[in-house]
């Protein structure tokens, strides 16, 4: 047993790939069989990750020797690298077509989520600018939160909260979109793009639209991808600076 743990520990990164593969395999099955694809596999997988982290220490599951590779696979370098690659799916021509309205959605969606998240954070006792910005970022998507937290140097527990917020958002979006689509007028490409840009959360938007009308998925997913990019751009920069100015004692 000792020998095996030492091999797993030495090859932590490879072992982490195996663990994550297993988690996602289980999540996809759960998504299909238990939730009838109402909750996306990605959201379940991230939730399982958070639950597993509870059984570890201050670095989550990665605090346990054999699992140390998770901290590298999920570390800031790999995370940022993988996130940047997702923007390749978005074509510049398509963004131009959405044009001015698309841009308003992206900025407004980020702002609203950030303000809601930041305000709740402040009144629930997270009064330093770093935590406020990170939780505000988490209210955009589960990516913007940790990217913001990593950039401004927030603590790991605050980053964990920001991931949880993003995951909850993505689940709510997935489940509620088919029910709300009619009332909100999401039945054409343009409104789908507005929806994606405002709400963000690529996995939630794609899954929600898929359950509403499959033809709308690419439009919503396109602007949702950009929501993450705009969030990663604005939250750790302008918005963080504003929070620093607004919150007394944090400068």
């Amino acid at each position: 047993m000792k020998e095996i743990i030492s091999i797993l520990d030495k090859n932590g990164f490879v072992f982490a790939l195996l663990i994550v593969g297993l988690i996602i395999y289980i999540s996809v099955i759960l998504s299909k069989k238990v939730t009838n694809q109402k909750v996306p596999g990605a959201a379940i997988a991230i939730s399982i990750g958070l639950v597993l982290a509870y059984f570890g220490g201050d670095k989550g599951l990665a605090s346990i020797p054999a699992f140390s590779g998770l901290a590298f696979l999920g570390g800031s370098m790999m995370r940022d690298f993988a996130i940047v690659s997702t923007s390749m799916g978005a074509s510049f021509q398509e963004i131009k077509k959405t044009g001015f309205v698309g841009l308003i959605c992206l900025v407004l969606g980020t702002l609203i989520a950030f303000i809601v998240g930041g305000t709740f954070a402040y009144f629930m006792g997270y009064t330093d600018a770093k935590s406020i910005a990170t939780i505000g970022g988490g209210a955009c998507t589960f990516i913007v939160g940790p990217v913001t937290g990593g950039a401004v140097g927030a603590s790991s527990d605050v980053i964990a909260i920001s991931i949880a917020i993003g995951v909850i958002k993505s689940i709510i979006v997935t489940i509620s979109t088919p029910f709300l689509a009619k009332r909100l007028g999401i039945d054409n490409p343009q409104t789908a793009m507005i929806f994606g840009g405002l709400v963000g959360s690529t996995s939630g938007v794609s899954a929600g639209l898929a359950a509403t009308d499959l033809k709308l998925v690419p439009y919503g997913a396109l602007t949702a991808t950009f929501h993450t990019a705009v969030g990663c751009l604005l939250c750790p920069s302008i918005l963080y600076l504003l929070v620093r100015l607004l919150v007394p004692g944090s400068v």
Partner: protein
Amino acid sequence: MKIYGVAILACCFLVGHITGDALGRLFNMNGNLGGVGFAMLLLVLVHDYSQRKKILMPESENGILFWNSMYIPVVVAMSASQNVKAAISGGWLALLVGVFATAACFALIPFIDQIAKKRSIKSA
């Protein structure tokens, strides 16, 4: 060659980080201001340019697409290596923000939709 695509991705990533870092210094903070965002925008522009000029072969694009598909796995590993024990006290905060932030975004859709429709009537 797949590595060409990966190399382009790496280049965008680094330029974005250097930009973000320079901005951080400009505002006198030890942090990275929007580096990932810059890198993403840069990759969109580079990819768009190379597609129009047909520089990037599909095989090279696959190098970037591989990392694209590793995005959720990396996020899963990231959540598994957070300090969740210390975050449990913030569980209610997570739930409240998740619900209210989503509701606020949903509420805005009809308004923006109106603006969009008015604009398209004007331009038509």
